[in-house]
């Protein structure tokens, strides 16, 4: 009886691993690194995490969760409300429609897929912010941020893979 309880608790703990990585990366992304010019182009770590988990464990990171994560990020970062939920739900939708392709493809294809999605997400961000501010916002930092996000994807993808193996595959 007790074994069953502990097993369930252990399983529940493992199941929140994807959400925890998303939340921790969101907070890590907000830490001031005191590097000149870093803040505006800091990579979108949450986007990487959502992309990975939407492919591998969509049952543990649901679209509604992606929405809530986006809302929390909007509230914390001071972004106009609703922009991050919109982008994350759209990204989730696109990933889910191409999920089979991402699961069987090579890492190169996965990276290419992420590059396209990150570029699209960056465009949606830019358009949404321009519309909400009713002015043409500089696109330079947004483009630089997208490039940095794409460039750093392999490193974070490797970390997600290790976490995935450590917490969710052996059980």
């Amino acid at each position, binding site marked *: 009886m007790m074994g069953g309880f502990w097993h369930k608790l252990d399983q529940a703990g493992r199941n929140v691993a994807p959400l925890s990585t998303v939340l921790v990366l969101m907070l890590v992304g907000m830490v001031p690194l*005191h*590097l000149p010019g870093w803040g505006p182009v800091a990579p979108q770590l949450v986007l990487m995490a959502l992309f990975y988990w939407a492919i591998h464990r969509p049952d543990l990171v649901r679209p509604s969760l992606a929405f809530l994560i986006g809302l929390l990020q909007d509230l914390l*970062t*001071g972004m106009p409300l609703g922009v991050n939920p919109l982008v994350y*739900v759209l990204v989730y939708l696109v990933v889910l429609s191409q999920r089979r392709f991402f699961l069987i493809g090579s890492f190169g294809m996965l990276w290419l897929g992420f590059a396209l999605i990150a570029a699209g997400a960056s465009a949606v961000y830019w358009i949404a912010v321009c519309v909400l501010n009713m002015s043409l916002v500089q696109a330079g930092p947004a483009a630089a941020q997208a490039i940095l996000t794409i460039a750093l994807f392999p490193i974070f993808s490797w970390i997600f893979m290790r976490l995935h193996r450590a917490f969710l595959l052996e059980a």
Partner: protein
Amino acid sequence: MKSRANGSVLRLAAPLRAFAHRFSFALLLMAAVGLMMVGKADTVVVEGVRARIVDAFTPILGAFSAPAASAARMIEAADELVRLHAENDRLRRENELLTQWQQAALRLEAENRSLRGLLNVQADPQASFVTARVVADAGGAYVRSLIVTAGRRDGVKRGQAALSGHGVVGRVVEVGEWSSRILLITDLNARLPVVVEPSRTRAVLGGDNADQPRLLYLPPEAPVSVGDRVVTSGHGGLMPAGLPVGVVSYAGERGVRIQPFEDLGRIEHVQLVDFGGTGSLVGDTGPAVEPAEKVGMGRQP
């Protein structure tokens, strides 16, 4: 028989589930657009919620940012150690220059005091300040803001000026119980009344998310040139006049841009200063100061 019934239920359920699935996505997307409208329409409630959430996460952000700050300090210390000799030389020369300036400042201060006494000038209200640590520079490519560890219980109020060692960096736009958000002068929505010092030309400093904010509403023939100092004008009553902001870094057909005195990407601590001002922020709820006649009329029996 039973298995066949199960099969037909499954056959029916699959399209239904697909429909529900698609419907839930449409609902979430609509909710996101709805949130954008709410955020535009009801800024007071949204601001309250933001302040609560930031309050809740500030301790975690504080813990996360401490190691990053000490790493940055260590790198800086190592860098200083390498340049110790040259730095010492530079400081000695600067010290000589500053000593001369100190003499000038003391003479001017005495002169100023005696002239103020002659003219019976009303002194500005006394300023009080709290110093807070920066725990997050949030917003990525679209928002220039900082989260700092001082809030209502430390006496921080909305609209207060945020200063660092070298000058104005922004103002408080959101106050929680023990945290607050500072909108930097480079943000898209930041507006700060300033004067260009040599000519006393008034203008408004407006951010556009670039590192160097622009000067808006300059008179067309304004004598502004590169290197001019820009200070706050005190108009609007939010900030006192004369706080240093930056120097003109570009003046040409594409407008005038300012290089802030402070490197806004590397702020570790800010001073939130209460100057006892009575101005109101654009978008504030209700007038901060009632019109004089209205108050007078209300008092009459």
